[in-house]
Every structure is written in C-alpha cells, then in structure tokens.
C-alpha cells in the first residue's frame, strides 16, 4: 500500500531529463570555466584591454623559448627511452618463458603507483654527483675521489631528469604494449616460426609491425606525462639552472603573480596535449584490423629464451632496480639515519620519525588536509562519474554526448594548466575559493574525472539494461533503478574508481603547488617546502608514509577485484 503510493508519486515525474541537463551544466562549469578564464587572461594586458603582448614575449624572450625547447626535447627523450626499455619488456613477459613474470608485473605496478616526485627525491640521494650513494660506491670501488673524477651519475642535469621521468613513465608504455601483444593472435607469429624464421626475425618482422600503433600511442602518453610533470624538473633540473615550462609557470606565480603571462605560457601545453591525443586516438583507432580472429597471444607456446635469459633478466633487474628497489631502499635508509650520506655504523636514529610525527607542527594539518581532500574528491568524483557514466552510456536523454565529452576532456588539461585556470576562476567573485580546500578539491575532481569515467564506463557496459527495464516496469524511476539495481551490480567498479581517485589525489603536486595556502597545505607541498631547505630525513619519512597509504589502498582494490573473480 505504502510502497505502491510511493511508486505512483515517483512515476508522476521523471527527473532524468532535468537531472541530465543539470549534470551537463555542472561539468561545463567544472571544465570550461577555467579554460575560459585562461584564454581570456592570456590575451589581456594589465589594463584588461586586448593584447597579444604575452604571446609575443613567449615567442621572443629566451627566458620562455629555452624552457619550451627543454620541455619538448626531454619529453621526446623520455618517450623514446620508454619505448626502448618497455617494448622488449612487454614482449618478454607476454611471449617468452622469462622466469618470475608475476613478480615483474607486480614491481611494474609498484613503479606505476610511485609518485614521480618521490622517485626524484630518492634519486637526489642516489645520484647526486658527489654524495649520492651510487656515486659513493662507484668512487670507492675504483679508488677515485669525488670532484677529481667525473661521477658515474649526475642526476642534476637534463639527462638525469629524463632518466628519472622515464623510470616512472615506462609502465604506461609497458601496459600499452602488453595489451597489444595479448590481443594479437599468436598464430601469425607461429606461422612465421613454422616457415623457418628465427625468433628474432619473427619478432622484428611480424610482432613489431603489429604492435607499432600501440608503441606510438604509448610514446605519446609518455611524452604528455613528462611534459606536464612539475615535481621532477623542480627537484632535478632547477638546481642545475634548467627550467621547463611547468617550473617556469610556477615561477610566474610567485607574488606578484604574472597571471597573463602564466595563462599564455599554459596554452601551448594545452594545445600540444590536444593535438597529440587526437593523433593518438587516430593511431589507436586503426589498430582494430590487425587483431581480427584468433586466440590471444598468451595461449601460444612461449618462446624459449635459453641463454638469452641472462640479458633479458638483466633488463628487468636494471629498470625495476632503478625505479623501485634502489629508490625505496634509499628512502628507508634515509629515514632511519641521522646523516643520509654517511655510513650506517653509528648513524642509525629515529630522530626524523620523532621530528615528523611529534615536533613538526605541519604534519598533522597536512595529513588532515590530504585525507579530507582525498576522501571528498574520491567520493564526489565517484558519485559524479557514476551518474554521468550512466546517463551517457544509456543514452536516455538529451545531453548524453556532451556528458561523455566533458567528463573525458580534462585528460587534455595538464595539472598545472588546470591550476592556473582554477586560480583565475575562483579568486574573483562570485565564488572566491582561493585559500580554502574547495579550490584544491575542484582541481582534484576535475583532474580525476577522465580516469574515473573510464573505470565506471567499463563496469557499466557489463550490466545489461534489461535488469533496469524490469525495475522500471515495476514502477521505479530511472534514478531509483540506478541506485537499487545497477549500483549494487557495479559495486566493485565503484570501489575501484573511488580508490583510483583517492590515490591520484593524495599524490597530486603540480596543481596543488599553485593553489595551496598555509592553511590548506597537503603532504606533497609540505615535502616540497622541506626540499627547499634540503631536509631529506623528514622528506624520507613522509615519502614512506605516503607509499604505505598507497599500497594499503591497492591491497584493498585487489581484495575486491579478487572477490569479483570468485
């Protein structure tokens, strides 16, 4: 009786259409408002009249031309380094009898989730030309003296930066290449083998051409990742007097902020990203015809490496040693010694832990802010992408195409560019959010929309609309059907999305660095502040804390995805 009447009232008006329209407006405000102010500010001079002076300075002033050039060539170098290292790694894992594949995949995942700026911190301690531990071992081993002989590694250089960026970007390329290999029917390779080609020839003439589109796409992603990083260049390139576009934009934000110039300097990054993503989707779109028919590659007989096992394993040991084992090791070591560059004996101490957790008055505030932001961005973001994903995939009402577009558009907006746009949008009425956590919250939600949307969309595609139709026939509204029928079915996808956004948020630096104030510091910017005074011990303690939180969250994801498999 009661239930029937509720049903009747709900049937009286379907809120889906106005709701969808509201979502379009909300997403448009989130994504387009910052871009609007960015574009407008870039073509205004101080008197707010139209002017292209900022763009002229960008093209003429060597202080901008040089960073742009550095950014472009280093990003291309990172992309290439990733192809050279990760393509063979993917092939080895996918096609050969390489020992320890599961372990390698786990370590690649660890590299993938390590915040790149943590890697950069660790590499300062490993690859500082004179005190860096690797160089200390090198000098000791060969009886050399620092400064007399050139170091083995000089991490404070453009190439040092390329190296460290590549260490935390190669997992993207690995994933692209491994997925492509898994999709290619191994029969093609077997045919080549049956016709008498040696393994290397098959790889070169059959496999490589088939995965080439994936490698190109991966190269583009690696390029874009490197171009938009802030922490790594700030930690490794600035001490050598080298600027990239992101560090340049950051320096324009020192008070008094040169907003017009910062906006103008942001737009090239935006255009490059949009152009490359278009190129990438064109390349990936064509991949389809190579994979028609046949079983996936993993079903084929693995190629026997024989004596090649040694160099193959050496590649994995080198790449994962440099991206995971050595950095994690040096962070742990630094956290537990008084003087990071001295010998262990007599140097062990809990001093940095005591300082960070019992004396440093920013720790509590930063942890609290980071958690509040992580939880609220993950919750709001998950809710948003679930609704948007549902509306856009079910194609029920007006606006579904705009929704999908708006939800994935931020993928083309680099974090620091988004931050410039948000700063311009929310330091003026009607919404003055600068100085509050809200502006950082908006940055995180917007930045994570595409990742969340992809996650949810793939879960939603697995749920057939018939189930909802049944509930609709029984009188439920669409929203009720969504929450009562669909949501429980995609529960694991929702949880995974939440955790993805949470992990992405707690490690965010490149947008936060422009938006934080003393009250709204996060762990990442606190660490960045500590870097400016070379306080490596406390940095190591906070790094370990951040990694522990990240890995606990990943363990939770694994539990849920395992549950789904059962």
């Amino acid at each position, binding site marked *: 009786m009661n239930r029937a009447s509720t049903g009747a009232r709900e049937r009286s008006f379907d809120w889906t259409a106005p709701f969808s329209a509201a979502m379009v407006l909300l997403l448009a405000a989130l994504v387009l408002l910052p871009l609007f102010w960015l574009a407008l500010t870039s073509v205004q001079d101080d008197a707010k009249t139209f002017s292209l002076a900022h763009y002229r300075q960008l093209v003429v002033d060597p202080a901008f031309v040089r960073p742009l050039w550095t950014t472009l060539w280093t990003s291309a170098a990172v992309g290439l380094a990733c192809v050279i290292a990760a393509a063979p790694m993917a092939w080895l894992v996918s096609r050969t009898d390489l020992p320890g594949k599961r372990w390698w995949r786990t370590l690649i995942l660890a590299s993938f989730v390590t915040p790149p700026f943590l890697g950069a911190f660790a590499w300062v301690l490993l690859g500082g030309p004179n005190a860096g531990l690797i160089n200390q071992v090198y000098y000791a081993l060969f009886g050399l003296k620092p400064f007399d002989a050139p170091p083995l590694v000089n991490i404070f250089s453009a190439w040092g930066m390329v190296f460290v960026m590549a260490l935390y970007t190669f997992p993207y390329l690995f994933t692209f290449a491994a997925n492509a290999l898994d999709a290619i029917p191994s029969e093609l390779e077997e045919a080549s083998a049956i016709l008498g080609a040696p393994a290397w020839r098959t790889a070169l003439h059959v496999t490589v051409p088939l995965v080439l589109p994936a490698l190109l796409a991966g190269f583009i992603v690696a390029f874009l990742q490197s171009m938009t990083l802030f922490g790594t260049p700030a930690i490794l390139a600035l001490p050598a007097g080298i600027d990239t576009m992101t560090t340049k934009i950051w320096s324009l934000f*020192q008070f008094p902020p040169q907003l017009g110039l910062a906006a103008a300097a942001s737009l090239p990054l935006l255009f490059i990203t949009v152009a490359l993503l278009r190129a990438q989707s064109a390349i990936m779109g064509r991949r389809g015809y190579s994979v028609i028919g046949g079983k996936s590659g993993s079903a084929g007989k693995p190629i026997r490496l024989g004596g090649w096992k040694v160099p193959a394993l050496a590649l994995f040991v080198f790449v994962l040693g440099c991206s995971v084992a050595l950095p994690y090791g040096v962070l742990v070591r630094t956290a537990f010694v008084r003087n990071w560059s001295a010998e262990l004996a007599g140097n062990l101490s809990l001093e940095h832990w005591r300082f960070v957790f019992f004396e440093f008055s920013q720790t509590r505030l930063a942890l609290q802010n980071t958690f509040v932001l992580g939880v609220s961005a993950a919750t709001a973001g998950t809710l948003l992408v679930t609704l948007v994903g549902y509306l856009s995939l079910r194609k029920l009402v007006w606006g579904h195409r705009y929704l999908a577009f708006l939800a994935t558009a931020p993928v083309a907006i680099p974090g620091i560019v988004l931050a410039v746009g948000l700063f311009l949008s929310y330091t003026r009425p009607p919404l003055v959010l600068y100085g509050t956590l809200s502006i950082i919250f908006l940055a995180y939600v917007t930045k994570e929309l595409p990742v969340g949307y992809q996650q949810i969309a793939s879960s939603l595609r697995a749920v057939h609309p018939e189930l909802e139709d049944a509930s609709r026939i029984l009188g439920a509204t669409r929203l009720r059907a969504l929450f009562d029928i669909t949501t429980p079915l995609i529960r694991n996808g929702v949880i995974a999305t939440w955790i993805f956004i949470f992990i992405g948020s707690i490690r965010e630096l490149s947008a936060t660095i422009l938006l934080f104030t003393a009250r709204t510091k996060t762990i990442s910017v606190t660490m960045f502040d500590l870097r400016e005074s070379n306080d490596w011990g406390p940095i190591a303690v906070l790094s370990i804390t951040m990694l522990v939180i990240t890995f606990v969250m990943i363990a939770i994801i694994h539990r849920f995805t395992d549950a789904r498999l059962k």
Partner: protein
Amino acid sequence: MGLVRVAALSAALFACVVATGAIAQETTPALVAAAAKEGKVVWYTAVDVKVAEVVARAFRAEYPNVALEVERAGSERVFQRISQEFQSGIKNVDVVNSSDASHFLLWKQQKLLAMHTPPDVQRFPAQYKDSEGYYAVWRASLSVMGYNTKLVTPQEAPTGYLDLLDPKWKGKLVKSHPGYSGTSLTGTFAITKLLGWEYLEKLSTQGVQQLQSTTAPPKSIASGERAVMVDGNEYNMFIEIDAKSPVKIIYAKEGTPFVTSPTAIFADAPHPNAARVLQNFLYTAKIQQLLVNEGGLRSVHPDVKEPADRTPLKDIKLLPDDPVAMLPQIAEIKKRYTALFGN
C-alpha cells in the same frame, strides 16, 4: 555626581586603551587567559624548520592552552605568501619573522603591523628596534662561506669571494637563492655593492649548484655533495659543527653580510592576544639564549651570553645590512640574479 565621575573616568580610560592599541604590552595573567580563549597562534617564520620547532616546543611547554602553528619558508617566499593571502582577503598569519628586514619597512608603510613592544625589547640597543615599536630584531645571523673539511684542506680553502672565481672550484660550489631567501637577498645586495655584478656574472659560469634556502647549502656541504658553499647561514653551520659534521666556516676577507631578522605582529592578526603572548615570549632572555645555544644564532638581547667556541662578532669584518637602501632595488636584484643563475 560621584557615579557620573566614575563613568566619565572609565570612558576616558576606555578611550585611552582603544587609542593605544587595546591590549597590554606585558604578558599578564589576563592576557594569557585571553590568548587561551583564542586557542591558537599562527607564526610564519623564515628560521630553519628544526630551530622553529625547538622554539615551538618551549612555547607549548609554557602555554599549553595556546596551540602554536609554525609555517616555515624562505623570507621572500613568506613575503609572497602573505601578500597573496592579504590580496585574497585571507587572514591567517598572526606573527611574522623574516630575514629580509626591508619587509618590515614596507608592511609598516602599508599600516599592516600592530604596535607592540615586548618588555625585553625595551632594553635592546636602539638600532635593533623600530623607534615607534612596530618591530624589533628577533635574531641575527651572518651569511658566511664554508667548506667540507674532508674534501678541502685548510690550506687550499678559499679566503674570500674572489677566490671562488678560480677554475679549480668549477662544479664544486653551492649557493642559495635571493628570490627565496631573505638572508641570500641581503647578502647579494651587500656583495654586489662591494664587488659589483661582474663578480656574480663570473661566478655564474662556475657550475654553481643553485639551491633555494640559505639553510640548505650548509647541509649540502655537510653531506659532501658540494665542497664549498658560496653563501649559507652561519647558524646552520654552527648546528652542523655541533653535530660533528665535517664543515668549517669561512669569514670572507672582503667582509661577511650581517643579516638582522625582525618579527612583528600583524594589525589584523586573527588571534591578537595569543600573538602578543608569543611575541613577548620570543624576546625573553630564555628563548634568546635557546636560539644562541641550540640554534647557533646571534642575539642582540643584552643578557645573552655567546658560547666560548664561537668567533665573537667584534672579531669578524661585517657588512651591515641596509634595508632602506635595499628596498627599492629588490625586484631588480632578483631579476638580474635569476637571469644569471636560473630560478
């Protein structure tokens, strides 16, 4: 009649109190109670983060009901953050400490500071306090050169700035940034006045590692990452020496920049009573002695004793700071410096 007179007297007294800034200069029990009611005080400071937390710990021990929040960054960064906050209408900071003394001239001109003279400051020499009582020197330090004793022998160590231009130091030097640090800015002003910009132009071709804070180069040479530091805080060098790090201070023969670092209360401090409790506390002989003993700093408090193992100021050739002359040149110094050494 009597009642009216009492009322008139109270009104006059009240007017007086309002006119003079309302809050007592001394830390009375009433002030402490009012501070406890505010619950916290926010202190932006440029002093090394560990020294700041030593002071904070002492403050918490004395005033457990007033939570002290420390925000530490380089002086120029502190100034930028405060300016950005004020421009955006954010009122967060109560008490500020900066090693760029010209900041206080600017803030005073803009009427942003509260007039307050801590009891101990009344006994400070006149040159170390504002004549109208808006700020006073909380600590002082020198921007010194230094070297790692495992990498450089005393014989080959440089004795002055011009020695650093020798090709043998190429790739071995480390330096702080005047765009970030007030000490570095004050030092850059003094040294370019003495030696001209040609000196820095030549130095910039020496492969200098560019760090930000003046607290960082002493840590860098202590770790052995660089052999010689061009500029860095004397107090961080004392801290390293006390911790048995292999470093030695060089007082350059051309002279060493003397950097005073005042503190002040902001007029719009969100916690005005707690701000005064903190400000008074910072200048007490006890805390000033703590800064000297544990923080390696110099104090201008008349009661403070220097440890015997530190070179007394009178034996060092000093280049005194001159905030009035520096103020109009700050933007230009930062610009020229960044063009030579990067951000």
